[in-house]
């Protein structure tokens, strides 16, 4: 048997992806349904000389990974709703100080303690706007374990390329469900190394001076260059500044470096979209049911297709607008009260043709749920 084939939970697929991407340091605090990630990494990381620490809370976990990342480590933390709420201030710090890090949020039902062991996709907007102030963020998701593996590697790659935190927005069904995973061999999936400065020791290094291509080479904190890192607006040396031009330019840079690269960052999957009159748009575990509906109805002559989003933020508005142009109607399938629905309505020319098929009761949305809602929309009755 090929030892690279595993039968695992989604949380384990995420761990495999993180280790493949070169994870060196993990700090976390237990919370259902993400705990397996911490437990597995407490075994696996020291086996390869990496570090695992269980901190006193999620605030501390987020802060610890930022500190570790600065020194040159690839870092991650994993949590769920309540813990993700606690991480928001430090997440903003990582955005401001441009520190690569990966935050996994295995979503459960909220608000508050909500419904810990049940599925939800209610944190989509929290991932976008959970921390204060104008900013850009990258959040990606997946619907099966092979994709969990690949999006986890991708999260590390994006975080290094753009010097930004990346949120992996999985959900309880993905985290806990078991299915097959084939772990690729080294090199089969690209893994981005940290871009290090070529500035030599003793020469003035500017931690926040972008190269021509917009990227900011890093120097391991504690190494040969001494510099300041702060959550205040800062100049190219990392020194605090309230100069209006410095403030304006930095904020623009933080947003533009992500939003100008939507096309490079966006990952999605499409099924039968070419001639589709009805398009389902979905993501995460809900996309599994949506795909099931498409696979069932296509052979029965229905012109139906699926657009599965993997990148949720930055939202791929132009992709949506282009793919949905010819559709008669579009149904967004998600397990919240329409968080992606709103973005889709903004993206398309005829928002009135966009509908929602959702569940918000902690129960996984089934193909039958979606088909019932489709019949209502088509005026056929349930």
């Amino acid at each position, binding site marked *: 048997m090929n030892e690279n084939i595993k039968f695992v939970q989604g949380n384990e697929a995420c761990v495999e992806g993180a280790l493949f991407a070169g994870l*060196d*340091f993990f*700090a976390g605090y237990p919370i259902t349904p993400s705990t397996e990630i911490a437990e597995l990494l407490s*075994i696996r990381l*020291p*086996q*390869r*000389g990496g*570090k695992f*620490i269980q*901190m*006193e*809370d999620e*605030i*501390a*976990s987020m*802060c*610890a*990974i*930022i*500190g*570790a*990342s*600065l*020194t*040159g*480590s690839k*870092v991650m933390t994993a949590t769920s709703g309540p813990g993700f709420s606690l991480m928001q*201030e*430090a997440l903003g*710090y990582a955005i401001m100080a441009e520190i690569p890090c990966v935050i996994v949020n295995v979503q459960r039902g909220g608000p508050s303690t909500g419904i810990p062991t049940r599925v939800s996709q209610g944190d989509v907007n929290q991932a976008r706007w959970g921390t204060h102030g104008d900013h850009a963020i990258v959040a990606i998701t997946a619907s099966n374990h092979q994709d969990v593996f690949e999006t986890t590697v991708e999260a590390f790659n994006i975080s290094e390329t753009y010097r930004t935190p990346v949120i992996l927005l999985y959900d309880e069904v993905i985290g806990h469900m078991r299915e097959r995973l084939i772990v690729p061999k080294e090199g089969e999936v690209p893994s981005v190394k940290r871009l290090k400065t070529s500035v030599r020791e003793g020469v003035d290094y500017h931690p926040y001076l972008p190269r021509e291509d917009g990227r900011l080479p890093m120097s391991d*904190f*504690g*190494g*040969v260059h*001494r*510099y*300041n*890192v*702060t*959550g*205040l607006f800062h100049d190219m*040396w990392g*020194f*605090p500044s309230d100069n209006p031009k410095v403030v304006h330019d930095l904020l623009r840079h933080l947003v533009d470096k992500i939003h100008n690269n939507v096309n490079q960052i966006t990952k999605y999957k499409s099924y039968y979209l070419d001639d589709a009159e009805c398009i389902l748009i979905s993501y995460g575990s809900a996309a599994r049911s949506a795909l099931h509906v498409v696979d069932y109805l296509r052979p029965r002559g229905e012109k139906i297709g699926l657009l599965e989003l993997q990148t949720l933020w930055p939202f791929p508005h132009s992709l949506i607008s282009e793919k949905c142009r010819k559709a008669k109607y579009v149904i967004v399938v998600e397990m919240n009260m329409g968080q992606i629905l709103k973005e889709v309505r903004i993206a398309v020319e005829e928002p009135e043709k966009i509908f929602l098929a959702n569940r918000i009761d902690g129960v996984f949305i089934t193909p039958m749920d979606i088909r019932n809602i489709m019949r209502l929309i088509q005026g056929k009755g349930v």
Partner: protein
Amino acid sequence: MAIKDYLRERFFPHLWCSGCGHGIVLNSLLRALADLGMSKNEIVMVSGIGCSSRISGYVDFHTLHTIHGRALAFATGVKLSRPELNLLVPMGDGDALAIGGNHFIHAARRNIDLTAIVMNNRIYGMTGGQYSPLSGQGIMATTAPYSNIDYDFDTVELAKAAGATFVARSTTYHTQQMTKMFRQAILHEGFAMVEILSQCPTYFGRKNRAGSAIDMMESYKENTTPIGSKSKMENPDLIERGIFVQKEVPEYCNEYDKIIEKAMKGR
């Protein structure tokens, strides 16, 4: 190395008020580093938010100015991933013991090797004079206009109870003692906590009619006494200065290295 060489002159003038005790703490700290002959590249300073935390901007080390209360959590990440670095973590009393109290006790409990410095002015300086958990009863503050009813606690007792393996206290009046303590704290392998009583003439001083900065420093001389002194027995209200705890206990990063060894061997 001359003390001046540890400073980032580009960053001056500093933002502290004249008479603020925080600059005296900086001075003593730099003297300690100079005495130890430490190079700038081996020192990482991690601070939070507050007047005290601005100290990290003024020194030419690797400096990480973080968010309010969380300096020790950031420092834990830096230290665990690069144990060879020397970490200094200066904090205000609000920073370290109100919003950051949880991180304080857990960093102490882990005995991770770093030097935590609590610059205790018993008030929130940066935000304009609100009471802190170290203010204590009867203190006037902008949020205690009728006088404070909150009890304070003793930083030294808290650090001891949490498991800190080096615990000391001094004041901005006792600069030589402070420098010596910093030297010992930095050399100590494990979690070292040094509390420095540091005056805030602008808010604590004015609100509490404590007089000028010099008056406040003189009160440190009058109200404190060496640990176990005769005057403490005569007047239990005196605050003790000195080293309260100094013990050898396995350090966190070293212990984690043993975990790595075990894990690599397959337990």
